[in-house]
C-alpha cells in the first residue's frame, strides 16, 4: 500500500517538474514563434500584391513596409488584405486567402487581384502536404508566375476561370501548365482554385466595393 502511494507521489512530482520545464520553454519562445508566423504571412501578402520586397530585407524592415502598404479589412468573416501604392492613397490590389483539398492533404494559398478585380496580380501556395519534388512544386516560382495577369470572370456554366494543361500544350490565356508527374495535385488545385476565385468574385467582391 505504502509503495503504491509512493509511486503516485513520485509520478506526480516528476510530471510537475517536466511540465513546468516545457511550459517555461514554451513561454520564452512563444513571442518568437508568433513573430515568425506573422512575418511569413506578411511576406506572402506583399508578394501576391506585387509589392516589391528588397532582397535580404530584415524582418523589422519588412514589418515596417507591410504597415505602410497593407491594411486588413474584414469582409463576411474573412480577412482581406488591401494593398496601397507607394503614395498610401490609391489601391494597388486586394489579397485574400484560398484553400482546398490537395492530393494528400489541405492546400493553403494566397491570391492577389488588381484593384478592378479583373486579373490576378500574384499567387502563392504556402501550406500543403503534397509529395516533395512532384505535387510540392506548386510552391515553385514558375508555377505561381503563370497565374500572373490571368483574366478573372465568374464561372459561367462549365467555362472555368483557368485550366491546367499538360506542360507545353497550354495556348489560350486561360490555359496554364500543369505539373508533370503530379496529375492529381494539378487537378485538385484546378478544382478548388476555380471555386475559390469564383466565390471571391461572386460573394466577396460586391461587399468589398460596398465598403469603399
Amino acid at each position: 500500500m505504502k509503495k503504491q502511494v509512493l509511486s503516485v507521489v513520485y509520478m506526480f512530482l516528476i510530471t510537475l517538474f517536466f511540465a513546468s520545464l516545457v511550459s517555461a520553454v514554451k513561454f520564452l519562445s512563444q513571442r518568437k514563434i508568433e513573430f515568425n508566423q506573422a512575418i511569413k504571412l506578411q511576406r506572402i501578402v506583399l508578394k501576391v500584391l506585387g509589392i516589391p520586397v528588397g532582397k535580404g530585407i530584415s524582418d523589422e524592415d519588412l514589418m515596417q513596409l507591410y504597415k505602410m502598404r497593407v491594411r486588413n479589412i474584414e469582409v463576411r468573416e474573412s480577412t482581406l488584405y488591401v494593398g496601397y501604392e507607394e503614395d498610401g492613397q490609391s489601391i494597388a490590389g486586394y489579397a485574400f486567402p484560398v484553400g482546398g483539398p490537395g492530393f494528400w492533404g489541405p492546400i493553403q494559398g494566397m491570391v492577389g487581384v488588381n484593384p478592378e478585380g479583373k486579373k490576378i496580380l500574384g499567387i502563392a501556395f504556402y501550406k500543403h502536404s503534397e509529395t516533395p519534388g512532384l505535387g510540392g512544386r506548386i510552391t515553385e516560382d514558375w508555377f505561381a508566375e503563370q497565374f500572373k495577369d490571368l483574366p478573372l470572370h465568374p464561372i459561367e456554366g462549365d467555362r472555368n476561370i483557368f485550366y491546367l494543361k499538360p506542360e507545353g500544350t497550354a495556348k489560350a490565356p486561360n490555359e496554364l501548365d500543369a505539373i508533370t508527374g503530379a496529375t492529381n495535385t494539378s487537378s485538385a488545385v484546378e478544382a478548388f482554385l476555380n471555386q475559390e476565385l469564383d466565390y471571391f468574385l461572386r460573394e466577396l467582391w460586391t461587399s468589398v466595393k460596398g465598403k469603399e
Partner: protein
Amino acid sequence: MPNPPSKKEIFLTGLWKDNPVLRQILGICSTLAVTNLMVNTLVMDAGLIFTVCMSSLTVSLLRKYTPMRIRMMVQTLIIASYVIIVDIMIKAYLPDISEALGPYVALIITNCIIMGRAEAFARHNPPMSSFLDGLGMSLGYSLVLIAIAFVREPLGFGTLLGFSIMPEGFVQWTIMITAPGAFFTLGILVWIMKYFRPQPGGEER
C-alpha cells in the same frame, strides 16, 4: 564474468557495432521520411542526438528512485518533454525547416531508439555511461541518415544541401524523393553492412 565495457566501447558499440539503424533496424520511420533533403536530415539528427542523450542521462540519474512498476510511464514522460522542447526550439529559430519536417519532429517521441536505450541501458547504468551510450547510438543513427540523404538528394533533386551538383540536363530520379527510394537505399546499405561484417550467430557463421 567479463569486465564491464569501457566508456570507449560503449560509445563505439552504438556508433558502429550495434548501429541502431543498420543492425537493430530501429528508427526506420524517420529514416525513410526525412532523408530526401540533407538539411532536413541534419536537423532531425540534431534533434535525435539531443533527445537520446538527455533522456538516457535523466533516466539514469533517476534509476535508483524510480519505482519499477511505473518506470515506463516515467521514461515516456521524460522523452516526450525533451522532444517537445526540441520542437518548440526548431519552430522558434528554424521556422522554414520546422515546416519542411512537419510532424516528424514531434514523432521523435515514438522513435524506438530512445525508449530502447532507456530500457536496455540507461536504467541499469551510471549517468556518464548512459549519456555516452545515447551519444553513440544517436550518432550511429545520424551517420546512416546522412549516408542515405547523400544518395537521395543528389539523385532525386540533383542538389546537395541545396547546391546544384549534377551535370546540366540531369534527369531527376523521382523515386528517390519518395519513400520507396529510401527503402531501396536503406536495403542496399544493410546488405553491404551484412556482407562486410556478418553478425555473430548469423548464417555466415
